């Protein structure tokens, strides 16, 4: 396992199993996740700005579903925490946690932007 993976707590074993070990398909799936997450993040940011707990929970849940494909790492964990905050109506706390989530998503983006990242998983 390389350092970047340790830092990201990346675990693509579920996704790799789901695509029956086909690394080209895995790359396609990861590309889909990386294409979807910026839009989902924007929706989550808008929900936080509107301080709408139910909307925060829904959008965080969607984001959690996407990053969950990449394993139950920190981004997945944070999205889950924000989702729960949304359900509890803790909009302000959710907005604070969102900054950490953005950082984690940037780390993921950086890793998957590397050429031949699939060699490390």
């Amino acid at each position, binding site marked *: 396992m390389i350092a970047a993976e340790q830092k990201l707590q990346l675990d693509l074993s579920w996704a790799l*199993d*789901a695509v*029956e070990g086909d690394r080209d398909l895995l790359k396609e799936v990861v590309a889909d996740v990386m294409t979807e997450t910026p839009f989902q993040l924007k929706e989550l940011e808008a929900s936080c700005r509107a301080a709408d707990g139910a909307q925060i929970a829904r959008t965080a849940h969607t984001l959690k*579903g996407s990053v969950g494909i990449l394993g139950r790492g920190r981004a997945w964990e944070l999205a889950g925490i924000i989702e729960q905050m949304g359900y509890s109506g803790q909009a302000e706390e959710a907005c604070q946690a969102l900054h950490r989530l953005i950082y984690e998503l940037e780390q993921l983006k950086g890793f998957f932007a590397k050429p031949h990242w699939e060699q490390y998983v």
Partner: protein
Amino acid sequence: MGNKILVIEDNAAFRKILNIRLKSAGYETIMAEDGLSGLTMARKEAPDLVITDLMLPGIDGHKISRMLKFDQRYQHIPVIMLTSRDLEEDAEIAKQCRADAFIVKTTKAQIILDVIERLLAQAQARAVPLELTE
């Protein structure tokens, strides 16, 4: 062509994974990205089984299951509810909506395929054969 499975899932990556695995297992697939179009497809396309995400834009998975299972025309169609929330409460509601199975999304694909196979076999066994008269 194998049994027809309708997948209602708003997450594109997850939808792709399911599509790949189902097709590779010999099933015909149809896909919907939100609850309303999923429900419309379920009623129009008469799938042999429905896999629906729980949280969907528009109509959620609970409602989809309820609307199919409480309608005599569609109640024979097995419904699998998929979720990334592993909550007992969701499983309980899924039961109340008469979903046939409740599965967490990160369950191994082969286990999901085994559940599908079992539910399809059960549904076929339950189907009443036509009475033929001379």
